[in-house]
């Protein structure tokens, strides 16, 4: 028994070590400062996808993971969405495909974007309240009620984005013996019934993938999971907690607008704000703005007051840190 535990721990250690080595390799070898962080982020996202697969094969009590992430999100905001979420990874990969096609994204209007940000909380509240609202209803045989309530419904909705593409358990979609999954696929399959499961999953997958081909990070604008992470940071009494902050130095900013243009979540606050910490819950700390800001030390990512990443004059070939 303990031998197995040791071997699992060893496996995880080797895995984490490989990821760290990959990050280090990118830090040293990737000279182009404009894409350094992006490459690193892709590596971390891929690693986290694998990590979630491994976690899924150990335990089905995934609620614990979500709870842990939620607690951590008090401290690091939506870092999860930018760097760890597998669903976000798919959408970033879609963007890579789009770039290969030289297609341009559609820039979502600022007002709509801010409205969608509020809508996320409505969606979240809706899913959290559903069981309490519909639980007392007697006729369980009604298909609609069955669909809306279900066992662990809110949890599975909240957990869905962390499902990696390949899952260890039996799934609705099976291709050459590999169990494929997609965020929210299990939820849809559970309630759609045999016949339509595959169809509705395909439609959902197509819709989200196709739309993230047009709008960068499409699903993130609706995602209830992301809303849970940013929920606490929205409230003033909690705003002092985050140890991970995006910080802007007022004097060094020339308002050149690059941060606003490159942001995959279409956050305008980094541009609009005069200086200081960026507090918006729309920001997922993907650090694309930090990477693209051409002014030395203007944008920073602070971890507990210490600067982890800072914007660099990316025209200068970087010196090894």
């Amino acid at each position, binding site marked *: 028994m303990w031998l197995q535990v040791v071997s699992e721990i060893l496996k995880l250690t080797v895995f984490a070590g490989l990821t760290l080595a990959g990050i280090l390799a990118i830090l040293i070898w990737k000279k182009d400062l404009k894409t350094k962080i992006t490459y690193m982020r892709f590596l971390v996202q891929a690693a986290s996808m694998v990590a979630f697969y491994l976690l899924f094969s150990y335990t089905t009590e995934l609620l614990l993971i979500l709870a842990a992430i939620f607690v951590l999100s008090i401290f690091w905001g939506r870092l999860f969405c930018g760097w760890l979420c597998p669903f976000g990874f798919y959408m970033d990969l879609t963007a890579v495909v789009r770039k290969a096609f030289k297609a341009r994204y559609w820039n979502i209007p600022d007002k709509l974007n801010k409205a969608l940000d509020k809508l996320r909380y409505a969606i979240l509240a809706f899913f959290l309240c559903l069981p309490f609202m519909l639980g007392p209803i007697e006729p369980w045989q009604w298909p609609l009620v069955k669909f809306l309530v279900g066992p662990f419904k809110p949890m599975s909705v909240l957990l869905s984005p962390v499902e990696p593409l390949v899952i260890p358990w039996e799934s609705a979609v099976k291709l050459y013996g590999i169990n494929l999954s997609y965020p929210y696929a299990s939820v849809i399959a559970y309630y759609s019934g045999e016949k339509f499961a595959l169809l509705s999953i395909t439609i959902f997958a197509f819709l989200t993938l196709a739309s993230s081909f047009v709008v960068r990070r499409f699903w993130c604008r609706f995602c209830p999971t992301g809303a849970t992470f940013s929920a606490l940071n929205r409230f003033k009494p909690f705003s002092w907690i985050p140890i991970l902050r995006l910080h802007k130095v007022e004097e060094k900013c020339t308002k*050149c607008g690059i941060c606003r*243009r*490159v942001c995959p979540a279409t956050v305008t606050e980094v541009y609009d704000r005069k200086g200081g910490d960026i507090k918006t819950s729309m920001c997922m700390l993907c650090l694309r703005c930090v990477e693209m800001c051409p002014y030395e030390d203007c944008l920073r990512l602070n971890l507990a007051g210490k600067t982890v990443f800072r914007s660099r004059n990316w025209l*200068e070939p970087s010196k090894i840190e």
Partner: protein
Amino acid sequence: MEASAGKKYGVELPPKEAEELRKAMKTASAKLMNEYVERMRKAWPNRPKVMQYFDDVARFFDTRERELLKAKEEGKKVVGYTCMFAPIELILAAGAIPVRVACGVYDAVKLGNRIVPVEVCPVVRSTVGAGMVDLSPFIELSDALITALTCDGMTKLSEILSDKKPVWTLNPPRLKDAPQSTRFWREELKTVKTKLEKLTGTKITAKGLKSAIEIMHRATRAFKRLQEIRRSNPPVIMGRDAMLVNQTAMWDDIERWTAKTEELCMELEKRAGEKVWACPPDTPRVMLAGSPAIWPDNWKLPNIVEEATPQGVIVADEFCFGDRFLFDPVGVDEWTMEDMFNAVAERYLLPSTCPYFTSEDGNEDRVNWLIARIKERRVDGVIYHVFRGCMLYAIEYMRIKRALDKINVPVYYLDTDYTREDVGQLKTRVEAFLEMLKSRVEV
């Protein structure tokens, strides 16, 4: 839209008189350029050899004029621009040669006075005067001029110049932060793009624009590297020389300029390592702010500062004819045509700190820009240089002064005109200011 026939402003000079005036002014200007280069050499005994190249380019009546003529014979087009708002990337991508045409010749001012009243900024009057007698090789060789309707002087200057050349106007929105301004500005640049394509007959493709952006990235890198070197304390390069290098970028072949500047930077970095300073360590470090000092004649102020006793050294300036010219790179997110175009458009509008702009907080970007430069270059004092007639810079003085008082940096307001008469008086005033800075340095 075709410009209507007949000159709108033109005060015709008799051809003979114009020719005589042109010759006299050209000789005087060429002489003056030689003299100023000589003075710069004298003030800095161990001047790097590479500076010779920039001296040659600075004498634009010789080499650069011949080069442009030759390029024109080969069928290349030359596009002149008056303000920093003209998109150089687009001009390069269309296969034309960008040159800056605003003028710094004192003698031409008197001619310009015949058209423009003396209350107007001397840069405008000088450019008008130079246009009247075909003095500036850059105005003469341009196939079209891109002007920006910034201050009133520049707006009317573009009208006056349209008597001579086709003028394409750009209309920068006064509130640059608003989203509709960015949209409007994009449309403005699209119009210019179409006109450029029509003039050169070359379509601006994604590939061409990308390589143009990359050329300008390299130039910006060299430019920024030089400005980084100016941070060293004590300085390794005299301010006038650095300013000359900055200004030559505006009419030189940009790729050759980049190579030479990199070479200069290499030499200077070596000197910094060997601790070979350009001037004594306690020399007051001065920043020039306000209206631009334009080569050749308007080298008055830099000359005074660096030849005064006690000597000062210019470590930064805030001129669109200097430190600001290539300060901001074009940040392209995705290399599609549209994104590249947006990136170019935003680069020319948003980071600009021209006093033409305003916002709810006033022109705060400019204050921030100044403070950031003052801190990074360790500036001891600012000389606020204003042309008589330059309203925007003159009005903003009080705002800048209050902001700089807060960080305890002395500012000195210096208003002047395109004239050599006040050199002695200015010298006394600048020397008093430098004396004061020096005593502060010692404390």
